[in-house]
């Protein structure tokens, strides 16, 4: 037997790569890799592996050493290597072991198709950029026109702000000020004028409040702007007609505009950027600018994690009990970029939180520190019921009540103030001319009933008691509202309908008598008028006492002293001293106790790391925060911004704009925002219209009634600075422009007001378009199709060829046998 010639390493390598078993092993590894990356891993955390709670599921790629998205996991070097090996294995095996014959065309096609697909993938994923762009439908442009000495009007100030319900802006100069607020938007306003009847338009109603040195020109009206129809801009004013409280200025005054000094219009809100998607690949960025500048400079942040929390020390954040974070600081340089406004300044990221919300906690301040009483109450509805903890802040009217105004916490600076606060709500009516001075507890009066009988004001006897003699004065309480938030503090008001010999009117009686005023048409016009009461013959005072809170904990005047005042039913409140740790039980079994009390509390705001089980899966990175070390300054936590707007005036609904102003050691200031990287669009994009197609019955507010979303967008031609004709982008129907594809991604749904200062929205004010490139798609597609044809060939054509050949051989054998015979 001849000795086998020694084989070189290249031949051994070729043998390895032409081995089917090697391919099988690679495929098996690929299977495991993909399973781990996509579904994660399950592992036991308890020796009793038969118990269902002994097993835990985790996404390994999200663990601290990896911090990878699916996209990153599947483009990590081990995966690239694996795919490379598989490709080489297929190529070598095909060339070395599969003869290029008709019967093998199928396998050749499968293998070459898959190789081609891999090449397409390399091109595609190697060049992939994907993000999204928020495009608002319109901006409101407002200009204040000032009269010049020569009688002409000149633009003295201008402002542009988002056409989104609740958006506010101010414009004006030289003592004249217009407060503008988008009161409402109707995406499908039915036009009423004769020439436009039957048409609908995007309508924006702006509440305009003019104030200035000359109070006689102060006014308030609503201006309606219609997109695409500036000629139909008109004002709406209040009228005295109860059947039509708002009237068109054109009808009431004969002119469509109340005030020609304020000019408003709607125009597109061009979007020049699209923002990369962190779900695909980490793309964090810090945006910086000098205060007063309007544009941001983007600094990419490389190496910032995505899924886990990193803090330098435990005291940097608040955590839930038992969920303290182990210190794990980051040190990531955020270096200047070309054209940077601070080329000498390198920031450092020292912490990251995936899901945190700012939370204030209080700690005891210095004994001489400013007064800020904060109390921690423990409430219980029964012996077996778990206690409810509540924190109240006496000096913050938005945080001094709890349990739906059942419990209040107040501070008084004198015993007189205490007596006033720990009293039953009452009303005092005086008619000085008749010597009438009566006080009545509100508990004895019908409240809130506009049809309640009037309470006659009677003449007093010498001893002060009512005589029963009628004075011609009577009153009834229409409504009571306590602790209304004002810009200057809080106020309580009783709306009292007053009947006098001269007539009937309503008086808004505030606990602060300076605010009391009559609700007559004349007096309501000017909120700052010197005379607020039309009939001074009757004087009314409102003392809210405990107001709407039947249970009140009152601190002061000694800051350490706490008293509990309770008012159950009629009569005077019950007052008793309260000590920390003591629980007071009420007859119904309800108890209240003071768990902690800090008279000079210091507010400490830090991110609160939300426990994993309380995190909304859909929130993504919306609540992420990054800790930024500032050279020469204090570190700050920066909240994540989905989009980086240039100013607060541009912010649409459901989005935030919270830049932080940092002061450096040398006194320079820098404004920063933490967000995601963005790229310039090939051309600006504007939203002409957003159309919601609904199923039968129209859109009812339920997602299930929507059939399709369509954005009609325009692209700006940079060379001519002209907008293109509207192009429809809808679900499953993307549009290609400038080498990028635009997809319908999100929309602006209708929603309710979020708080007392907000306004509801009918939605459809913006769209979010997915934006991405797709190089190599055709290579991939052709490759997969070749592979598919190859499979059909190998499985179904090859047997037919073999059978035909066999039949031919059999026939020739039979023929030969016949000839032989």
């Amino acid at each position, binding site marked *: 037997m001849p000795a086998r010639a020694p084989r070189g390493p290249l031949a051994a390598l070729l043998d390895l790569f032409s081995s089917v*078993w090697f391919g099988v092993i690679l495929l098996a590894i690929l299977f495991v890799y993909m399973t781990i990356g*996509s579904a994660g891993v399950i592992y036991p955390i308890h020796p009793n592996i038969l118990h269902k709670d002994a097993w835990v599921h985790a996404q390994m790629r999200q663990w601290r050493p990896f911090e990878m998205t699916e996209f990153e996991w599947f483009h990590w070097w081990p995966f690239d290597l694996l795919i490379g090996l598989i490709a080489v294995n297929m190529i070598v095996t095909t060339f070395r072991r599969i003869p290029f014959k008709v019967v093998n065309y199928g396998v050749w096609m499968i293998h070459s198709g898959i190789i081609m697909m891999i090449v397409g993938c390399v091109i595609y994923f190697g060049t992939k950029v994907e993000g999204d762009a928020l495009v608002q439908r319109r901006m409101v442009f407002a200009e204040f026109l000032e009269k010049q000495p020569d009688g002409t009007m000149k633009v003295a100030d201008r402002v542009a702000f988002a056409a989104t319900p609740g958006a506010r802006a101010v414009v004006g100069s030289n003592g004249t000020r217009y407060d503008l607020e988008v009161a409402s938007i109707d995406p499908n306003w039915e036009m009423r004028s004769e020439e436009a009847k039957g048409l609908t338009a995007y309508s924006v109603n702006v509440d305009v409040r003019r104030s200035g040195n000359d109070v006689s020109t102060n006014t308030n009206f609503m201006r309606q702007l219609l997109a695409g129809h500036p000629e139909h801009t008109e004002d709406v004013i209040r009228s005295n007609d109860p059947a039509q409280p708002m009237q068109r200025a054109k009808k009431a005054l004969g002119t469509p505009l109340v005030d020609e000094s304020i000019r408003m219009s709607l125009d597109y809100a061009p979007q020049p950027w699209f923002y990369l998607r962190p779900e695909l690949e980490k793309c964090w960025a810090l945006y910086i600018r000098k205060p007063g500048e309007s544009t941001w400079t983007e600094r990419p942040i490389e190496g910032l994690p995505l899924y886990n929390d990193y803090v330098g020390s435990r005291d940097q954040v608040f955590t839930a009990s038992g969920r303290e974070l182990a210190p794990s600081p980051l040190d990531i340089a955020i270096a200047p970029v070309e054209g940077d406004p601070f080329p000498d300044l390198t920031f450092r990221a020292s912490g990251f939180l995936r899901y945190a919300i700012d939370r204030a906690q209080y700690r005891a301040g210095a004994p001489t520190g400013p007064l800020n009483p904060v109390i921690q109450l423990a409430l219980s509805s029964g012996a*077996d019921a778990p206690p409810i903890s509540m924190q109240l802040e006496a000096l913050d009217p938005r945080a001094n009540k709890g349990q739906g105004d059942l419990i209040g916490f107040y501070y008084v600076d004198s015993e007189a103030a205490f007596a006033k606060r720990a009293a039953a709500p009452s009303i005092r009516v005086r008619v000085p001319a008749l010597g009438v001075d009566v006080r009545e507890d509100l508990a004895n009066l019908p409240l809130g009933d506009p049809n309640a009988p009037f309470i006659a004001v009677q003449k007093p006897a010498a001893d002060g008691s009512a005589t029963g003699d009628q004075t011609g004065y009577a009153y009834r309480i229409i409504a009571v509202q306590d602790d209304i938030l004002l810009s200057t503090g809080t106020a309580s008001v009783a709306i009292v309908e007053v009947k006098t010999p001269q007539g009937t009117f309503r008086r808004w009686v505030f606990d602060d008598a300076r605010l009391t005023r009559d609700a007559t048409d004349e007096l309501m016009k000017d909120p700052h008028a010197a005379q607020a009461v039309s009939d001074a013959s009757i004087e009314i005072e409102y003392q809210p006492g405990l107001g709407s809170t039947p249970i009140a904990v009152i601190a002061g005047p000694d800051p350490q002293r706490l008293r509990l005042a309770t008012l159950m039913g009629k009569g005077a409140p019950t007052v008793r001293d309260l000590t920390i740790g003591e629980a007071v039980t009420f007859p119904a079994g309800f108890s209240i106790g003071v768990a902690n009390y800090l008279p000079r509390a210091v507010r400490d705001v830090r991110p609160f790391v939300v426990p994993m089980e309380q995190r909304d899966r859909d929130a993504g990175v919306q609540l992420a925060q990054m800790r930024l070390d500032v050279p020469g300054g204090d570190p700050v936590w920066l909240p994540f911004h989905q989009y980086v707007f240039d100013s607060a005036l541009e912010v649409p609904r459901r989005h935030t704009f919270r830049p932080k102003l940092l002061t450096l050691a040398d006194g320079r200031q820098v404004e920063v925002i933490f967000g995601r990287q963005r790229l310039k669009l090939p051309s600006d994009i504007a939203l002409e219209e957003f159309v919601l197609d609904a199923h*039968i019955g129209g859109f*009812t507010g339920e997602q299930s009634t929507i059939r399709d979303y369509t954005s009609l967008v325009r692209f700006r031609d940079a060379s001519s600075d002209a907008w293109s004709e509207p192009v429809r982008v809808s679900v499953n129907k993307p549009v290609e422009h400038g080498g990028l594809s635009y997809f319908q991604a999100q929309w602006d749904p209708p929603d309710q007001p979020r708080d007392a200062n907000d306004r509801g929205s009918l939605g459809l004010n913006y769209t979010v378009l997915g934006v991405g490139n797709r190089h190599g798609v055709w290579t991939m597609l052709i490759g*997969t199709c070749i592979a598919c044809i190859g499979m059909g060939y190998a499985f179904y054509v090859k047997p037919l060829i*073999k059978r035909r050949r066999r039949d031919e051989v059999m026939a020739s054998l039979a023929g030969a046998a016949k000839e032989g015979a």
Partner: protein
Amino acid sequence: MNAFRYGLISALQAIVVFVAIACCASTVRADEAPSFSERVDLEPLGTIAVYGEGRLKSLGSHANSMMQFVTGPRKIAGQDSLFTYIDLMLRPEAYVDADLVYVKNRSVREAIARELERLAAADPTLAPDMAERMNAFRATGLTSPRFLHNAALEPLFSKLEADVIRTARPVSEIRSALAVAEPGFLLGKLMIVPPASKSTDDQWHSVGELMLVPGATTPPAALTRLVPSNGGMDPTAGIPGIDSALQGQIADAWRAFVNAWLAQDADGVRTASASLATLLPKVAEGSDLYPEQSRLAWESWYFHMDQLTSIWLVYMLSVVFLLLGLIYRWTWARRLGVGVFVVAFGLQTFALLLRWYISDRWPNSNMFEAVTTAAWFGGCAAMAIELFVRRTPMKSLFFLGSAAASMVALMTAHFLPVYLNPNISNMMPVLHDVWLYIHTNVIIFSYVLIFMAAVSAFCYLAWRMVGGTAAYARVGGAGMLVLEPGSKRARAGEAPSIGEVLDGVTMVLMELSFVLLWAGIVMGAIWADHSWGRPWGWDPKEVFALNTFVVFALLVHVRLKVVDKGLWTAILALGGAAVMLFNWIVINFVITGLHSYA
């Protein structure tokens, strides 16, 4: 071999006993006096259309979908969903303490049961038999609204709601169930009056809006509690734009219906239902807004018949006979099995066509439809392949695979409606695309073939376990059909063993599913490219479809190299099916992704 046969016979006996019990169960109460729910005939209501969530559906279908929010998959006292809907709306007092609300999540169920038991221990008046009722609750998931409305449960609910990953959703479902069970809500959702405009863009009206409209009869006092607030409008004003005389007639018919229901007058209910069914379409007369009454009647019947998912019993019978035919080579059993299969497939085809007719779209847009339609594709494939193999030893085995697949699919749909929601609803916008029909159908077709291949692979492994030799089909897959007939062995008249035949069946199905799965993945990529902006996003569903393909790629290559080809083919075919099922079950219900609606 004998052990295999005895085991199989025992399993078949158990199945027969189970079927017999299931058939007899409905006759147990035959001697009792029929209750109102049994006497009342709801059929005339079946032709009334209801508007809900952008669809016009039959009253039966509407009741089914609404009651699912309350009672989950359970039926209350064996009543039809439509009966429970109306009864709960008109006689809520009868349900105050009834076990009505379904709590799906078992840990939440347990937490509520414990808390209620604790409360009952402190206050026995809450329910003297609380322990018993809570045991029933733990078993069925149904409990009383009275318990769930108990304010003392609020702290528990608040605590559970804080865990948004595990328990917030079940608590939200409980709150939804309690809200839906309110009579006013049920009445508000009874939107059976077409809009005056007769336009498809306008919403329908609740019959409650006509409750107090003047007519020939005066409204009963019992109705006033159901009168909707109507935004402060005059409740006797009715619906603007609709002929007032017609409104009066509808109001009369509705009031008669309510009165008859409250009086438990089955005849009165039938008469009033028929009047309503006649009058309501008149509001939309002159337009094609009101759906065809025949369609509505079929829809009601379809849901009344539990979407015909009971066909699984027929498939099971087919499986039994086909297995007998396979094991004992009994021709009569095999033929009977084929006959029963054809009947079952016919019934399933009817159910599928009916659903297509009712929903006005090919049924493949939710899990119920995907599973049942996939099973039907399996039947089609079996019929087609059997034509080619009718003269080979493989005959009837594709019927066996398909019957098993359909049986499992329909059983799942029948017994797990919580997971496979049978209700017909509008498709999400992204699904309105021709690729839904191309990509989804090709993928589910490949999936059912994978399952069928797993059936033959399982039979092969069972055969090997009871002593079968390491046999395999010499020419695998379609080649077997093409090349085997002229082979030496065929010419010699040598019959292949069961193992060879089963391996051959596995390979035929595997090859077909291999090509279809690849094609389906590619088609999905094409759809994703123009829908989501990228052909491949490493979404879990995509990855596991590819993983399934990788397993079959492994099978093809391992089969080339190993000696015991049949064994490895069977193992990897089962592995591929396991990955496919993982993709359909775990990925869909546990790991959410872009395909979470699929």
